[in-house]
């Protein structure tokens, strides 16, 4: 089974803090994704990566950055957390080779910014 793990299930931070969310996958997938999930808005793509050291902006990249130094690890960084970044963050991974490949999701990190 594909396993995607996220460093924390719950996280509480203060406004202005730098926040790191880490994601690790064990299936040698080329593609990795960060989404945020908010009620009534569904999942929105923040950033994605097709290869090591490669990143592309998703639909809502403002206020976020990412890092992919190793194939299995994809980090989401909030440079200066704000209250409107309180959300559920989901990491996913998937094979390349076609648009038809499904994504595999981690359990999520519920981030609260006070």
């Amino acid at each position, binding site marked *: 089974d594909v396993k*995607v793990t996220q460093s924390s299930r719950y996280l509480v931070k203060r406004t202005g803090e730098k926040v790191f969310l880490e994601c690790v996958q064990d299936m040698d997938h080329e593609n990795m994704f960060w989404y945020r999930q908010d009620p009534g808005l569904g*999942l929105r793509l923040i950033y994605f990566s097709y290869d090591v050291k490669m990143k592309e902006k998703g639909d809502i990249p403002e206020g976020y950055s990412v890092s992919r130094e190793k194939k299995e690890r994809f980090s989401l960084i909030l440079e200066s957390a704000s209250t409107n970044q309180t959300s559920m963050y989901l990491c996913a991974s998937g094979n390349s080779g076609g648009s038809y490949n499904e994504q595999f*999701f981690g359990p999520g990190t519920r981030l609260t910014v006070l």
Partner: protein
Amino acid sequence: AQSVAQPEDQVNVAEGNPLTVKCTYSVSGNPYLFWYVQYPNRGLQFLLKYITGDNLVKGSYGFEAEFNKSQTSFHLKKPSALVSDSALYFCAVRGLTQSKLTFGTGTRLQVTL
């Protein structure tokens, strides 16, 4: 641009009855369509996908979905609902030339005894 609409925020069904969760999409060219399920405090799990071929796609846990090109729909169905099917369901679409998956806003399925 591609988009997905899930017109119902919540669907209520009695156990044993058939269920349908609706999804319509908009995409240039042929679509790749997916259904995912999210149980409480969990990540999303893949249920099924339509790529090409037979319009009726069968997936996990007895779910199936019907692709209708003329109505641009991909409704999720199950002949007999279980209380354990209660969860949040997401439809997603990806166009052939698109690099991103676009998700709907989700439909909460509540199955009661």
